[in-house]
Protein backbone atom coordinates (compact mmCIF):
# COMPACT_ATOMS: atom_id res chain seq x y z
CA UNK A 1 0.00 0.00 0.00
CA UNK A 2 1.38 3.38 -0.96
CA UNK A 3 -0.15 5.26 1.96
CA UNK A 4 -0.35 4.28 5.56
CA UNK A 5 -4.10 4.17 5.95
CA UNK A 6 -6.86 1.59 5.93
CA UNK A 7 -8.77 1.30 2.65
CA UNK A 8 -11.82 3.55 2.84
CA UNK A 9 -15.24 2.22 1.84
CA UNK A 10 -18.43 4.29 1.56
CA UNK A 11 -21.78 2.46 1.71
CA UNK A 12 -24.98 4.26 0.67
CA UNK A 13 -28.48 2.79 1.01
CA UNK A 14 -31.70 4.32 2.33
CA UNK A 15 -32.30 1.01 4.13
CA UNK A 16 -30.48 0.98 7.45
CA UNK A 17 -30.72 -2.84 7.55
CA UNK A 18 -28.68 -3.25 4.36
CA UNK A 19 -25.96 -0.96 5.72
CA UNK A 20 -25.78 -2.88 9.00
CA UNK A 21 -25.44 -6.22 7.20
CA UNK A 22 -22.65 -5.09 4.88
CA UNK A 23 -20.83 -3.12 7.58
CA UNK A 24 -20.77 -6.23 9.79
CA UNK A 25 -19.50 -8.36 6.91
CA UNK A 26 -16.67 -5.91 6.23
CA UNK A 27 -15.80 -5.67 9.92
CA UNK A 28 -15.50 -9.43 10.04
CA UNK A 29 -13.70 -10.14 6.80
CA UNK A 30 -11.50 -7.15 6.16
CA UNK A 31 -9.62 -4.25 7.64
CA UNK A 32 -11.50 -1.33 6.19
CA UNK A 33 -12.54 2.13 7.28
CA UNK A 34 -16.29 1.92 6.58
CA UNK A 35 -18.57 4.99 6.44
CA UNK A 36 -22.33 4.51 5.95
CA UNK A 37 -24.99 6.91 4.70
CA UNK A 38 -28.77 6.58 4.42
CA UNK A 39 -29.01 10.01 2.74
CA UNK A 40 -27.25 10.16 -0.66
CA UNK A 41 -26.72 13.94 -0.50
CA UNK A 42 -24.68 13.48 2.68
CA UNK A 43 -22.62 10.78 0.98
CA UNK A 44 -21.95 13.19 -1.91
CA UNK A 45 -20.66 15.81 0.55
CA UNK A 46 -18.41 13.18 2.17
CA UNK A 47 -17.02 12.18 -1.25
CA UNK A 48 -16.17 15.80 -1.94
CA UNK A 49 -13.87 16.10 1.05
CA UNK A 50 -12.50 12.62 1.86
CA UNK A 51 -10.35 10.19 -0.04
CA UNK A 52 -12.39 7.05 -0.74
CA UNK A 53 -11.32 3.79 -2.39
CA UNK A 54 -14.71 2.18 -3.07
CA UNK A 55 -18.26 3.55 -3.07
CA UNK A 56 -21.10 1.00 -2.99
CA UNK A 57 -24.49 2.60 -3.63
CA UNK A 58 -28.11 1.55 -3.84
CA UNK A 59 -30.07 2.74 -6.90
CA UNK A 60 -33.52 3.89 -5.71
CA UNK A 61 -33.10 6.47 -2.96
CA UNK A 62 -35.09 9.56 -2.02
CA UNK A 63 -33.89 12.75 -3.66
CA UNK A 64 -31.04 11.24 -5.65
CA UNK A 65 -30.54 7.99 -7.60
CA UNK A 66 -27.47 5.82 -7.15
CA UNK A 67 -26.34 6.75 -10.67
CA UNK A 68 -26.53 10.47 -9.83
CA UNK A 69 -24.55 9.85 -6.67
CA UNK A 70 -21.89 7.78 -8.44
CA UNK A 71 -21.62 10.49 -11.11
CA UNK A 72 -20.76 12.90 -8.27
CA UNK A 73 -18.29 10.35 -6.91
CA UNK A 74 -16.63 10.12 -10.33
CA UNK A 75 -16.41 13.90 -10.60
CA UNK A 76 -14.69 14.28 -7.22
CA UNK A 77 -12.54 11.14 -7.26
CA UNK A 78 -12.17 9.62 -10.72
CA UNK A 79 -9.71 6.94 -9.51
CA UNK A 80 -12.01 5.61 -6.81
CA UNK A 81 -14.07 2.50 -7.62
CA UNK A 82 -17.86 2.69 -8.07
CA UNK A 83 -20.25 -0.18 -7.43
CA UNK A 84 -24.06 -0.21 -7.80
CA UNK A 85 -25.96 -2.61 -5.54
CA UNK A 86 -29.59 -2.56 -6.53
CA UNK A 87 -32.90 -4.30 -5.97
CA UNK A 88 -34.20 -2.41 -8.97
CA UNK A 89 -33.48 -5.08 -11.59
CA UNK A 90 -33.49 -2.84 -14.60
CA UNK A 91 -31.02 -3.52 -17.36
CA UNK A 92 -31.45 -0.05 -18.85
CA UNK A 93 -30.27 1.59 -15.63
CA UNK A 94 -27.32 -0.83 -15.46
CA UNK A 95 -26.20 0.06 -18.98
CA UNK A 96 -26.68 3.74 -18.28
CA UNK A 97 -24.60 3.39 -15.11
CA UNK A 98 -21.79 1.54 -16.87
CA UNK A 99 -21.61 4.17 -19.60
CA UNK A 100 -22.20 7.34 -17.59
CA UNK A 101 -20.35 6.75 -14.35
CA UNK A 102 -17.66 4.24 -15.31
CA UNK A 103 -19.17 1.57 -13.12
CA UNK A 104 -16.83 -1.18 -11.88
CA UNK A 105 -19.55 -3.66 -10.92
CA UNK A 106 -23.34 -3.93 -11.00
CA UNK A 107 -24.68 -6.19 -8.26
CA UNK A 108 -28.28 -7.17 -7.63
CA UNK A 109 -30.07 -7.65 -4.31
CA UNK A 110 -30.15 -10.19 -2.78
CA UNK A 111 -26.38 -10.32 -3.10
CA UNK A 112 -23.80 -12.97 -2.36
CA UNK A 113 -21.44 -11.99 0.47
CA UNK A 114 -18.42 -13.79 -1.00
CA UNK A 115 -18.94 -12.00 -4.32
CA UNK A 116 -19.46 -8.64 -2.66
CA UNK A 117 -16.27 -9.09 -0.62
CA UNK A 118 -14.33 -9.96 -3.77
CA UNK A 119 -15.70 -6.95 -5.64
CA UNK A 120 -14.78 -4.62 -2.79
CA UNK A 121 -11.31 -6.14 -2.44
CA UNK A 122 -10.67 -5.83 -6.19
CA UNK A 123 -12.15 -2.35 -6.14
CA UNK A 124 -9.71 -1.25 -3.43
CA UNK A 125 -6.74 -2.69 -5.35
CA UNK A 126 -7.90 -1.02 -8.54
CA UNK A 127 -8.33 2.38 -6.87
CA UNK A 128 -4.93 2.17 -5.24
CA UNK A 129 -3.23 1.08 -8.47
CA UNK A 130 -4.86 3.95 -10.37
CA UNK A 131 -3.71 6.43 -7.71
CA UNK A 132 -0.20 4.98 -7.83
CA UNK A 133 -0.23 5.19 -11.61
CA UNK A 134 -1.22 8.82 -11.47
CA UNK A 135 1.52 9.45 -8.93
CA UNK A 136 4.11 7.73 -11.20
CA UNK A 137 2.92 9.68 -14.23
CA UNK A 138 3.34 12.93 -12.40
CA UNK A 139 6.81 11.83 -11.21
CA UNK A 140 7.63 10.96 -14.80
CA UNK A 141 6.40 14.38 -15.90
CA UNK A 142 8.62 16.06 -13.33
CA UNK A 143 11.62 13.96 -14.35
CA UNK A 144 10.93 14.72 -17.99
CA UNK A 145 10.84 18.45 -17.45
CA UNK A 146 14.00 18.33 -15.30
CA UNK A 147 15.70 16.42 -18.11
CA UNK A 148 14.54 19.00 -20.63
CA UNK A 149 15.93 21.83 -18.48
CA UNK A 150 19.26 20.05 -18.11
CA UNK A 151 19.39 19.43 -21.84
CA UNK A 152 18.70 23.09 -22.51
CA UNK A 153 21.40 24.15 -20.07
CA UNK A 154 23.89 21.72 -21.64
CA UNK A 155 23.13 23.01 -25.11
CA UNK A 156 23.60 26.57 -23.89
CA UNK A 157 26.95 25.67 -22.31
CA UNK A 158 28.33 23.99 -25.43
CA UNK A 159 27.02 26.25 -28.19
Amino acid at each position, binding site marked *: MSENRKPSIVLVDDEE*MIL*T*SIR*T*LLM*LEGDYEVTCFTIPQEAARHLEKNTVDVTVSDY*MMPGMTGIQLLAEAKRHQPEATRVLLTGHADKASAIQAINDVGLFQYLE*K*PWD*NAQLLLVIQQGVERAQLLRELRQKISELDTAHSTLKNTQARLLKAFL
Partner: protein
Amino acid sequence: MSVDIQEDQLLELQRQATLGRLLASVAHEFSAPIGSILSNRDIELRLIERMEKAAAEPAPDRVKELVSAYRELARIDQMAAERISRLVRSLKTAARSPDSECHCVNVNEVVDSALQLAKTEFRDRITVETDFGTLPNVECKPHLLSQALLNLVTNAGQAIEGKGTITAGTRLEGDSVHIWISDTGHGIREENKAKVLKQGFTTKPVGAGTGLGLLIVQRIVTEDHGGSISFDSEWGHGTTFHIRIPLQARKKGVE
Protein backbone atom coordinates in the same frame (compact mmCIF):
# COMPACT_ATOMS: atom_id res chain seq x y z
CA MET B 1 -66.33 -6.26 -32.58
CA SER B 2 -67.75 -5.94 -29.13
CA VAL B 3 -67.46 -8.48 -26.36
CA ASP B 4 -70.11 -8.82 -23.72
CA ILE B 5 -68.54 -8.66 -20.30
CA GLN B 6 -70.74 -8.91 -17.27
CA GLU B 7 -70.36 -6.26 -14.64
CA ASP B 8 -69.02 -8.55 -11.94
CA GLN B 9 -66.52 -10.01 -14.41
CA LEU B 10 -65.37 -6.50 -15.16
CA LEU B 11 -65.03 -5.86 -11.45
CA GLU B 12 -62.89 -8.96 -11.03
CA LEU B 13 -60.76 -8.00 -14.07
CA GLN B 14 -60.15 -4.56 -12.65
CA ARG B 15 -59.22 -6.05 -9.28
CA GLN B 16 -56.72 -8.41 -10.86
CA ALA B 17 -55.29 -5.62 -13.01
CA THR B 18 -54.77 -3.45 -9.92
CA LEU B 19 -53.03 -6.29 -8.08
CA GLY B 20 -50.95 -7.14 -11.14
CA ARG B 21 -49.77 -3.56 -11.50
CA LEU B 22 -48.82 -3.43 -7.83
CA LEU B 23 -46.89 -6.68 -8.00
CA ALA B 24 -43.68 -5.20 -9.41
CA SER B 25 -43.43 -2.57 -6.69
CA VAL B 26 -44.38 -5.04 -3.96
CA ALA B 27 -41.75 -7.50 -5.22
CA HIS B 28 -39.17 -4.73 -5.08
CA GLU B 29 -40.20 -3.98 -1.51
CA PHE B 30 -39.19 -7.52 -0.55
CA SER B 31 -35.64 -7.19 -1.85
CA ALA B 32 -34.17 -5.19 1.05
CA PRO B 33 -35.41 -7.38 3.93
CA ILE B 34 -34.74 -10.65 2.07
CA GLY B 35 -31.30 -9.46 0.99
CA SER B 36 -30.52 -8.53 4.57
CA ILE B 37 -31.69 -11.81 6.05
CA LEU B 38 -29.82 -13.92 3.48
CA SER B 39 -26.63 -11.97 4.00
CA ASN B 40 -27.02 -12.06 7.78
CA ARG B 41 -27.40 -15.85 7.86
CA ASP B 42 -24.09 -16.14 6.04
CA ILE B 43 -22.38 -13.60 8.33
CA GLU B 44 -23.76 -15.38 11.39
CA LEU B 45 -22.09 -18.62 10.32
CA ARG B 46 -18.85 -16.75 9.77
CA LEU B 47 -19.27 -15.13 13.21
CA ILE B 48 -19.74 -18.46 14.97
CA GLU B 49 -16.53 -19.74 13.42
CA ARG B 50 -14.65 -16.64 14.57
CA MET B 51 -16.13 -16.91 18.05
CA GLU B 52 -14.93 -20.48 18.35
CA LYS B 53 -11.44 -19.40 17.34
CA ALA B 54 -11.52 -16.36 19.62
CA ALA B 55 -12.73 -18.45 22.56
CA ALA B 56 -9.57 -20.57 22.32
CA GLU B 57 -7.39 -17.46 22.53
CA PRO B 58 -7.08 -15.00 25.36
CA ALA B 59 -8.83 -12.18 23.49
CA PRO B 60 -11.96 -11.15 25.45
CA ASP B 61 -12.36 -7.86 23.54
CA ARG B 62 -12.59 -9.63 20.20
CA VAL B 63 -15.24 -12.01 21.61
CA LYS B 64 -17.23 -9.04 22.91
CA GLU B 65 -17.06 -7.37 19.52
CA LEU B 66 -18.24 -10.54 17.75
CA VAL B 67 -21.09 -11.09 20.22
CA SER B 68 -22.33 -7.53 19.81
CA ALA B 69 -22.19 -7.89 16.00
CA TYR B 70 -24.24 -11.07 16.33
CA ARG B 71 -26.82 -9.32 18.48
CA GLU B 72 -27.10 -6.49 15.97
CA LEU B 73 -27.72 -8.95 13.13
CA ALA B 74 -30.43 -10.70 15.14
CA ARG B 75 -32.15 -7.33 15.60
CA ILE B 76 -31.98 -6.64 11.83
CA ASP B 77 -33.31 -10.14 11.05
CA GLN B 78 -36.26 -9.51 13.33
CA MET B 79 -37.04 -6.17 11.66
CA ALA B 80 -36.67 -7.64 8.18
CA ALA B 81 -38.86 -10.65 8.94
CA GLU B 82 -41.55 -8.42 10.47
CA ARG B 83 -41.54 -6.23 7.39
CA ILE B 84 -41.94 -9.25 5.11
CA SER B 85 -44.78 -10.63 7.19
CA ARG B 86 -46.59 -7.26 7.11
CA LEU B 87 -46.32 -7.21 3.32
CA VAL B 88 -47.53 -10.81 3.04
CA ARG B 89 -50.50 -10.02 5.29
CA SER B 90 -51.42 -7.01 3.14
CA LEU B 91 -51.13 -9.05 -0.03
CA LYS B 92 -53.35 -11.77 1.42
CA THR B 93 -56.04 -9.26 2.37
CA ALA B 94 -56.02 -7.64 -1.06
CA ALA B 95 -55.71 -10.88 -3.04
CA ARG B 96 -58.41 -12.78 -1.12
CA SER B 97 -60.36 -14.87 -3.57
CA PRO B 98 -63.71 -13.44 -4.67
CA ASP B 99 -66.44 -14.52 -2.32
CA SER B 100 -70.06 -13.50 -2.53
CA GLU B 101 -70.57 -14.04 1.21
CA CYS B 102 -70.13 -11.32 3.81
CA HIS B 103 -67.55 -11.74 6.58
CA CYS B 104 -67.04 -9.93 9.85
CA VAL B 105 -63.69 -8.19 9.55
CA ASN B 106 -61.58 -5.51 11.12
CA VAL B 107 -61.96 -2.62 8.66
CA ASN B 108 -58.88 -0.82 10.02
CA GLU B 109 -56.80 -3.80 8.89
CA VAL B 110 -58.33 -3.69 5.42
CA VAL B 111 -57.61 0.04 5.11
CA ASP B 112 -54.09 -0.43 6.43
CA SER B 113 -53.29 -3.25 4.02
CA ALA B 114 -54.45 -1.14 1.06
CA LEU B 115 -52.17 1.67 2.29
CA GLN B 116 -49.19 -0.67 2.75
CA LEU B 117 -49.55 -2.03 -0.77
CA ALA B 118 -50.15 1.30 -2.49
CA LYS B 119 -47.22 2.76 -0.55
CA THR B 120 -44.83 0.39 -2.34
CA GLU B 121 -45.60 2.34 -5.52
CA PHE B 122 -45.07 5.81 -4.05
CA ARG B 123 -42.04 4.91 -1.93
CA ASP B 124 -40.65 8.08 -0.35
CA ARG B 125 -42.56 10.47 -2.55
CA ILE B 126 -45.65 10.33 -0.38
CA THR B 127 -46.03 10.28 3.38
CA VAL B 128 -48.87 8.10 4.60
CA GLU B 129 -50.66 8.99 7.82
CA THR B 130 -53.46 7.15 9.57
CA ASP B 131 -56.12 8.19 12.01
CA PHE B 132 -57.92 4.98 12.91
CA GLY B 133 -60.79 5.00 15.35
CA THR B 134 -61.83 2.03 17.47
CA LEU B 135 -64.29 0.00 15.43
CA PRO B 136 -66.37 -3.11 15.96
CA ASN B 137 -65.99 -5.78 13.29
CA VAL B 138 -67.91 -4.92 10.16
CA GLU B 139 -69.94 -7.32 8.07
CA CYS B 140 -68.63 -6.81 4.55
CA LYS B 141 -67.01 -8.36 1.49
CA PRO B 142 -63.36 -7.82 2.33
CA HIS B 143 -61.92 -8.51 -1.14
CA LEU B 144 -64.24 -5.89 -2.66
CA LEU B 145 -63.74 -3.35 0.10
CA SER B 146 -60.00 -3.80 -0.28
CA GLN B 147 -60.30 -3.21 -4.03
CA ALA B 148 -62.32 -0.02 -3.49
CA LEU B 149 -59.76 1.28 -1.00
CA LEU B 150 -56.82 0.39 -3.24
CA ASN B 151 -58.48 2.32 -6.07
CA LEU B 152 -59.00 5.35 -3.83
CA VAL B 153 -55.46 5.31 -2.43
CA THR B 154 -53.92 4.79 -5.88
CA ASN B 155 -55.99 7.72 -7.22
CA ALA B 156 -54.88 9.84 -4.27
CA GLY B 157 -51.25 9.01 -5.03
CA GLN B 158 -51.68 9.89 -8.70
CA ALA B 159 -53.28 13.22 -7.78
CA ILE B 160 -50.13 14.24 -5.95
CA GLU B 161 -47.35 15.59 -8.13
CA GLY B 162 -44.01 15.36 -6.39
CA LYS B 163 -44.13 15.12 -2.63
CA GLY B 164 -47.31 15.02 -0.58
CA THR B 165 -49.33 13.27 2.07
CA ILE B 166 -52.18 10.77 2.06
CA THR B 167 -54.22 10.46 5.23
CA ALA B 168 -56.60 7.59 5.86
CA GLY B 169 -58.97 7.49 8.77
CA THR B 170 -61.91 5.60 10.20
CA ARG B 171 -64.65 6.45 12.70
CA LEU B 172 -67.71 4.74 14.03
CA GLU B 173 -70.79 6.83 13.21
CA GLY B 174 -73.96 5.37 14.71
CA ASP B 175 -74.63 2.10 12.92
CA SER B 176 -72.12 2.69 10.14
CA VAL B 177 -68.40 3.10 9.62
CA HIS B 178 -66.98 6.22 8.04
CA ILE B 179 -63.74 5.71 6.09
CA TRP B 180 -61.93 8.65 4.50
CA ILE B 181 -58.94 8.94 2.21
CA SER B 182 -57.46 12.39 1.94
CA ASP B 183 -54.68 13.65 -0.32
CA THR B 184 -52.71 16.86 -0.70
CA GLY B 185 -52.85 16.58 -4.50
CA HIS B 186 -54.13 18.88 -7.21
CA GLY B 187 -57.81 18.48 -6.32
CA ILE B 188 -60.79 18.32 -8.66
CA ARG B 189 -61.79 21.28 -10.83
CA GLU B 190 -65.21 22.77 -10.09
CA GLU B 191 -66.50 21.98 -13.60
CA ASN B 192 -65.48 18.31 -13.24
CA LYS B 193 -67.02 17.62 -9.85
CA ALA B 194 -70.37 16.51 -11.20
CA LYS B 195 -68.71 14.08 -13.63
CA VAL B 196 -66.27 12.43 -11.23
CA LEU B 197 -68.48 9.52 -10.29
CA LYS B 198 -69.72 8.96 -13.83
CA GLN B 199 -68.61 6.09 -16.01
CA GLY B 200 -65.47 6.61 -18.06
CA PHE B 201 -64.58 10.03 -16.66
CA THR B 202 -60.85 10.58 -16.40
CA THR B 203 -58.42 13.46 -16.69
CA LYS B 204 -55.49 11.07 -16.93
CA PRO B 205 -53.73 10.56 -20.26
CA VAL B 206 -54.66 7.52 -22.36
CA GLY B 207 -53.02 4.47 -20.86
CA ALA B 208 -52.84 5.91 -17.36
CA GLY B 209 -56.50 5.73 -16.49
CA THR B 210 -59.69 4.13 -17.75
CA GLY B 211 -62.11 6.19 -15.75
CA LEU B 212 -63.44 2.97 -14.29
CA GLY B 213 -61.67 3.15 -10.93
CA LEU B 214 -64.09 5.45 -9.15
CA LEU B 215 -67.11 3.90 -10.81
CA ILE B 216 -66.03 0.58 -9.35
CA VAL B 217 -65.51 2.13 -5.93
CA GLN B 218 -69.01 3.54 -6.13
CA ARG B 219 -70.49 0.21 -7.15
CA ILE B 220 -68.70 -1.67 -4.39
CA VAL B 221 -69.74 0.84 -1.75
CA THR B 222 -73.36 1.40 -2.74
CA GLU B 223 -74.47 -1.81 -4.41
CA ASP B 224 -72.36 -4.43 -2.67
CA HIS B 225 -72.41 -2.86 0.78
CA GLY B 226 -75.47 -0.60 0.80
CA GLY B 227 -73.24 2.32 1.76
CA SER B 228 -72.64 5.80 0.38
CA ILE B 229 -69.77 7.71 -1.19
CA SER B 230 -69.05 11.43 -1.38
CA PHE B 231 -66.06 13.74 -1.69
CA ASP B 232 -64.97 17.23 -1.04
CA SER B 233 -62.25 18.86 -3.02
CA GLU B 234 -60.68 22.21 -3.59
CA TRP B 235 -58.69 22.76 -6.78
CA GLY B 236 -55.05 23.08 -5.85
CA HIS B 237 -55.52 21.84 -2.30
CA GLY B 238 -56.44 18.18 -2.50
CA THR B 239 -59.39 15.87 -2.21
CA THR B 240 -61.03 13.78 0.49
CA PHE B 241 -63.20 10.81 -0.37
CA HIS B 242 -65.67 9.64 2.26
CA ILE B 243 -67.25 6.23 2.24
CA ARG B 244 -69.82 5.06 4.73
CA ILE B 245 -70.66 1.40 5.20
CA PRO B 246 -73.33 -0.03 7.51
CA LEU B 247 -71.98 -2.25 10.30
CA GLN B 248 -74.38 -4.96 9.31
CA ALA B 249 -74.72 -5.98 5.71
CA ARG B 250 -78.02 -5.00 4.15
CA LYS B 251 -79.64 -7.47 1.84
CA LYS B 252 -78.32 -7.34 -1.72
CA GLY B 253 -80.13 -4.82 -3.86
CA VAL B 254 -81.03 -2.67 -0.84
CA GLU B 255 -84.76 -3.25 -1.10
